[in-house]
């Protein structure tokens, strides 16, 4: 019966191993090994933006200059399926080694412990969080642990069309503009040029582009710092929403229906809107549009204070990666000045690495790109909680009736806040 002992030993040792595995998770992150030039590995890197593939290949080539034996394979999945696929991979412990994350989905992955902390890279000096806008570092920090390397910084600024301002006889915006300046100018332009189908201002009525910014400018908030309470029913937040309702009611902005029909960038790019709030990503689009030569950029106007949200993608590493040291080395390179400047030089938006933002500014010297980069100084993180999507859907469902004037803004804001609070309470359970 000697043979029967062997399986028993195997079973016992397997039990012992799994106990070790359990303990391994609590092991201090700093003891984890880092890669060096001799590290041999093959890692997957998942992204959703196919346009980034060629420049990222250049980044990988540069990375291979330091780590010649780490092979990085890019996997592109269109955004519509990207997070559905990642969820499936997350359920089956087969996440790619390195992948692109956005602030909207970050907490879901962080909460479930799927992301590897950046602590070893920070302790080793390969990564310095102070090189990035604080708001983005906050966006990718969970339980005081940094879990993602910011890759780009998308702030919002205001585009304007000089020609339409001249035709309406209105002075063009400056970065000192207040809400009143914007309202007066938008109204005048709609009055003067309305017969030609031109509006003073058109902005897609989403949080990121429109009302999150004006809520902050009014001194309000979207989500409390402890992420337990909605700020939509705060009197200042209501004013931030009312800003858009008033512009629509006065005819200074297209109606909710018109904007559903023709998105704001289409209106601005075809010369039918004199102003537009939009993100740093819109530079390439405007540059290729018929209004390219008459467009310029100013900072968002001030309300009670300055305010703007900043969002950006980050590179994260799967905690379950079998090639953790190699994956971390690549992650650090994606966040490095060298890596970010390669991407920014290709005109792919504003890099998160602060010292590299000049590359973005220089990529379109005809525009006042500083309006985007300067906004980093006072930007707030794009608001998220564990289940952001659920209350984002509530905003989409309820706010249009406030903007269109069908219901009083305060009523809608109150309903939104109370339903959002229910969701946040359910999240906390």
């Amino acid at each position, binding site marked *: 019966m000697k043979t029967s002992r062997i399986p028993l030993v195997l079973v016992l040792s397997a039990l012992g191993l799994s106990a070790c595995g359990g303990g391994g998770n609590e092991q201090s992150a700093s003891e984890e090994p880092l890669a060096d030039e001799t590290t041999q590995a093959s890692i997957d890197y998942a992204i959703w933006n196919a346009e980034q593939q060629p420049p990222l290949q250049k980044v990988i080539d540069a990375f291979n200059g330091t780590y010649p034996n780490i092979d990085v394979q890019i996997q592109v999945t269109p955004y519509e399926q990207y997070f*559905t696929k990642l*969820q499936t991979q*997350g*359920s*089956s412990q087969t996440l790619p080694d390195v992948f692109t994350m956005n602030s909207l989905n970050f907490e*879901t992955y962080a909460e*479930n412990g*799927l992301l590897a902390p950046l602590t070893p890279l920070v302790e080793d000096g390969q990564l310095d969080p102070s090189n990035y806008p604080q708001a983005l570092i906050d966006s990718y920090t969970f339980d005081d642990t940094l879990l993602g390397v910011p890759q780009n910084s998308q702030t919002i600024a205001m585009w304007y069309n000089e020609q339409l301002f001249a035709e309406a006889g209105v002075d063009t915006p400056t970065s000192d503009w207040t809400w009143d300046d914007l309202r007066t100018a938008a109204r005048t332009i709609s009055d003067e040029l309305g017969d030609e*189908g031109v509006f003073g201002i058109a902005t897609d009525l*989403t949080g990121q582009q429109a009302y999150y910014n004006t809520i902050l400018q009014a001194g309000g908030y979207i989500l409390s710092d402890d992420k337990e309470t909605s700020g939509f029913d705060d009197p200042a937040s209501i004013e931030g929403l009312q800003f858009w309702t008033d512009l629509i009611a006065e005819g200074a902005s297209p*109606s*909710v*229906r*018109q*904007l*559903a*029909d*023709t998105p704001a960038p289409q209106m601005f790019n075809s010369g039918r809107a004199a102003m537009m709030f939009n993100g740093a990503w819109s530079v390439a689009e405007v540059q290729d549009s018929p209004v390219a030569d008459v467009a310029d950029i100013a900072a968002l106007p001030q309300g009670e204070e300055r305010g703007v949200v900043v969002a950006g993608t980050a590179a994260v590493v799967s905690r379950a990666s079998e090639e953790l040291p190699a994956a971390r080395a690549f992650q650090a390179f994606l966040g490095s000045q060298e890596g970010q400047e390669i991407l920014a030089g290709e005109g792919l938006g504003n890099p998160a690495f602060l010292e590299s933002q000049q590359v973005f500014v220089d990529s379109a010297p005809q525009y006042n790109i500083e309006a985007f980069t300067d906004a980093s100084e006072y930007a707030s993180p794009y608001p998220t909680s564990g*289940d952001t*999507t*659920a209350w984002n*859907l509530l905003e*989409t*469902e309820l706010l*249009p009736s406030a903007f*269109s004037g069908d219901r009083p803004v305060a009523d809608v804001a109150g309903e939104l806040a109370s339903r959002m609070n229910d969701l946040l309470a359910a999240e906390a359970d």
Partner: protein
Amino acid sequence: MFSGIAVFYLYPVASTAYYSFTSWEVFGGASFTGLTNYRRLLEDTDVVRALVNTVVYTGIVLLGIPLGVVLAALISRPGLRFSGGYRVIFLMSYIAMPVAIALVWRQMFKGDYGVVNWFLSLIGVDGPFWLGTEWYALFAVSIVGLWIALGFNIIILAAGLRGIPKELYEASALDGAGRMTQFRHITVPLLTPSIFFVLVINVIAGFKLFDLLYILLEPTNPVMPETQSLVFLFYNESFVVNDKGYGATIAMLILVLIGIFTSLQFRWEKRWVHYVK
């Protein structure tokens, strides 16, 4: 054979049924929650609205059946030139990708510069923002659905017409029946098996409304909550809100509804469908 059916059909249905009684976390790990999802389903006003929208859409698309009978009869008249050409033209709407069709119609329905409102302006009507206004948006989506279904209906019905014996027309002509009488008393009754077939297919397709809606309106459209279909709601709950347990419950509702409507149609079939003996 059976194992294939089991793997590809029975297992997915059974596991969806199981998950409809669970709460499914984002990264797997379903926990049994009994009837919670079903209780929520009964109280969910979004479900009621989505059901109404789905029924309205299906109802409008079904208008394509009488229309299809008339058009199929017109292009099947004996001696008509280019009858094959007509068939090809009508089939176009069915073979083109729904996504491509929806993108084109979306331009046509634009409130400011859409060709639909331009036509309306010619007869002095000030057209609405079709895709940005409650009910109008659903109507616009239904019109596109009708247009696609019509192509399919005409081809099936025209094929059905060929199966009607010519002698019946000759005999009735001798008895003095005119074109309209023949259409009412011979064509339509003997076409009922084909009509029954397109009815069943159209109802099922109507209940599956998703892609047209998604492309014509886009998920962020402010009237989407008032216009969404059951399948859209299922998609939203399962893959946007990530509540896959509740999503499975909505999927079960869709399955049961399609089952009920289809079996009712088969039950009533004998009352009005005539087969040539």
